[in-house]
């Protein structure tokens, strides 16, 4: 599956499940600070390579989350002793994740209900 979250407009009708990328990023960051590539890799690995992020939309998404105040970033030296930008979840981000996750669960349940009924 390929998630296209590259559009600036989250309500764009072309986007399947608007806001999904944001939620996945927030969820990933609950593990601790990570750089952009790390986030992408984590999502790929935990989904067993079934979810592949369009990387071009990852960085605008990270900016969007920062603007909302859900994520902050800072430059730090990574384990391979190279400077990289690390993203970290804020308290507001954690709250947002809870909201989005429960909304997502509800939607999944609803979709599942429809699919099983027919």
């Amino acid at each position, binding site marked *: 599956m390929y998630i296209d979250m*590259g559009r*600036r407009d989250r309500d764009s009708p072309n986007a399947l499940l608007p806001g999904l990328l944001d939620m996945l990023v927030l969820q990933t960051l609950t593990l601790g600070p990570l*750089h*952009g*590539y790390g986030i*992408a*890799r984590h999502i790929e690995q935990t989904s067993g390579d079934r979810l592949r992020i*369009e*990387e*071009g*939309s990852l*960085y*605008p998404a990270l*900016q*969007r989350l*920062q*603007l*909302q*105040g859900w994520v902050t970033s800072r*430059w730090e030296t990574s384990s391979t002793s*190279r400077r*990289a*930008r690390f993203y970290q979840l804020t308290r507001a981000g954690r709250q947002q994740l809870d909201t989005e996750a429960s909304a997502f669960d509800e939607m999944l349940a609803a979709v599942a209900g429809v699919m099983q009924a027919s």
Partner: protein
Amino acid sequence: MKAIGKLWRRMMLALRSSQFDRELDEEMRQHLEWRTQDAIDAGMDEAEARRAAARRLGDTLRVREASRDVWGLTWLRDLDQDLRFGVRLLWRNPGFAAAAILSLGLGIGATAGVFMLADAALLRELPVSHPGDLSILEWRAEQWPKVSVWSAYRDAESGLRVGGSFSFGTFQHLAVDAAPKASVAAFAGIPKVSLVAANQPWTAETLVVSGGYFNTVGARPALGRLLVPSDDVPGAAPAVVVSHRLWQRAFGGDAGAIGQMVTVNGQSFTVVGVAERSFFGLRPGTWVDLYLPVTVGLGVDPDIRRRRSPFTSPGLWWFELVARRRPGVTSADLEKVLDRTFGQAIDPSVLQGLSTRPHVHLRPGGRGYAFLVRDARKPLSVLLALAGLVLLVACANVGNLLLARSSARRQEWAMRLALGATRARVARQHLAEGAALGVFGGLTGLLVAGPFVRSLVLLFSAGRDDRWYDVGFDWRVLAFGAGLSVVAGLVLGVMPVIRLLTSASPAPAHGFRSSGGGWRRRQGLSRPLVAVQIALSLAMLVASGLFVRSLHNLHAVRLGFNAEGVLLFDVDPVRGGYGGARRLELLNGIRRTLEGVPGVLNSTRSSMALVDGRRAADIIRIPGRPVTNVEDSVSDLLEVGPDFHAVLQVPILTGRAIGERDDAGAPLIAVVNEAFARMYFPGEVPVGRQVLVDYPRDSPPVTIVGVARDAKFASIREDTADPLICLPDAQRPRATGTVIAVRVSGEPAAARGAIVRALGRAYPSLPLSRMRTFEEQSGEQLATERLLSVLSSAFGFVALVLAAVGLYGAMAFSVTRRTAEIGIRTALGATRREVVTLILRDAARVIVPGLVVGVGLALAAVRVIRAQLFGLSPTDLPTIVAMVCVVAGVAFFAAYVPARRAARVDPTEALRAE
């Protein structure tokens, strides 16, 4: 809250926006590298891995743009570019830029300057703590209560009698009953006192205040302490608080002033404190220097000293009251409580014959008594309107220049649009240019406003040291100036944009040819703008013409006495040590001394100078005739020395004047004016009749011995004479200042020195002050009129110059455009005169409508300034005609200059240019 956080993060990012791209690029470079490395580790060929990684990330430029867009950085960068572009455009045409910025700066500066003054006089809150909690008490009644009231007027709209002062007894009741809801304080102005501080004499504006005054008002001390209730009880040590200003002047700002003794009208007081520097009392535009507690302080007022028991007299309503509401108490709540108490406390004797009682009404007190600054309000609003018009004309002018230029730049715009710029972007560049103009104009305006407002203050307070405005920049002035700049900038930017958006789709192929066609079609907005400028400047010049003429009328007014060759000066016998019976000795001595001064013809004295803007009036009774209506039983009152009428050359119509023989022992007499005779003795012979003057109480009747011709009394603006009764000052014990009038032969200025020297020798301790001629005195009185004429003329002139420049620009532009046409006409045999006529006729199509509209505007506007005019109708035809001629002349001259240039067009040159 959320939006604020977002805005904050956006701003922080914008500050380091230059890093943004670098950091993002670095991030993406690392991303690619890691992805490539991972692929190589997974066994992929290096080149292949690199390509795959790049494919996954996509176009890095697009990622960057998308990331920037999240923050609105793209928009910001465009704005930045546009602003730079706007400034660069201005920079490229320094002549244009200077003209535009200066025009705007003058307009904005003038408007902001007048606003600063209005702000200080009318709008600013008192410099006390929580001014919003203050309320001012007044009463409203359908009929006048039978009281002697300090401040009251009849409201023209409601017809109600409105008073601002109460009896002291009423105040005490109100203060007690309202205590749970508010603290109430009383104060009353008393006549200027003679003060001796640090062994030097001064005169000081003085207020007597109840003990809680400073606490209620919310003033703070600069030094020492302010008055407290325990200062205001019988037997308390006499304490006085001085203003910061007086402290600086009299004590040189010495902290040792606290505890020093000063004498006020001969009574000793101890200085206990200095009020805060900014505290001037409760009346913006005036200044109080001394604050005395009521109980001891009223004793220094000689008028009150003569009255019996001023505190308990229910008919003396002399105290103004101010209240500070306690937290949570609304004005309506407090008003209810106060009015109930007022109804109970009011003495029945003052309500005799009245069907309703007065009711308490509360006014917001945060700005003090600013609403009473009526004499400043009207001229200020007129000035503000005039300055605003100048700004409007300036905007129109700059707008016109911009329009003319944008026409010239049509090709450039066409080119840009053809190359793919959006209209919105091009429009924004125009707006940015307007904004740049607005900003620079606003800055220039701020520079202009300072000196301008200082000269305004000088003009406004000319010769009156009790007038004072703390004029300065505060947030309101800055906001006002910034608002003006923004509006001006927007208007300037929008005008070309409207043209741009309404013009047909511009194809560059057409844009390159620009000759032919009148300017009517090309400059849709330009012509009406010039016409509007002409109309506005005409309206302003008509107003200024009216002001100048009424000032002239005021100078030329018939006074009813001979003001030429008279010198006036004030003496203060009490301060000079001539109190009580010695006062008359002194005044007669001055008279004799002056007789010996070369150049002096004769001299006299009076309790106040004629036409000095002041008046004293009292109730008059005719024995055997009951007073039916207080309003109809009043006369102005003047106490005069011997030969008063002779020295001022007021003709005596019947009977005799007041002379030397009318001294303290002689029968009590009076001389009245014609208006007095008409009012109290219609159809009778007034000479020989007796009248009672109500003040001091129980004085014996005086006999009228003469009737004098009516003359102006308090002000030269009086239309009709009011009744006036003159009493010999030898028969009236007084203690305050006296005005000496000296008639001299020749130039009054020449006699000044001799008079001062002679009196200085004879009475070294006697201070003389305000030596002046009537002309100089009326100059002080006419300060407002002079201010209006000077400023409106200046504004009108600036507007006319701007309009002329605008017209010149428009016509010059038109001539350039029509060069080819003119060339053809000349080639076909048109004479120079015909060409000039052609251009002037074109200009007339702008000028004439402008003049017509201007006359209409002027006629509408003069209604507003009617009250400021004197001795002429607001639709004064000569003024209007003269100003129309001036404006028309200047306008046609402005058009004639380019017309002459058109006439010199060489036909061959013109055609070749085609």
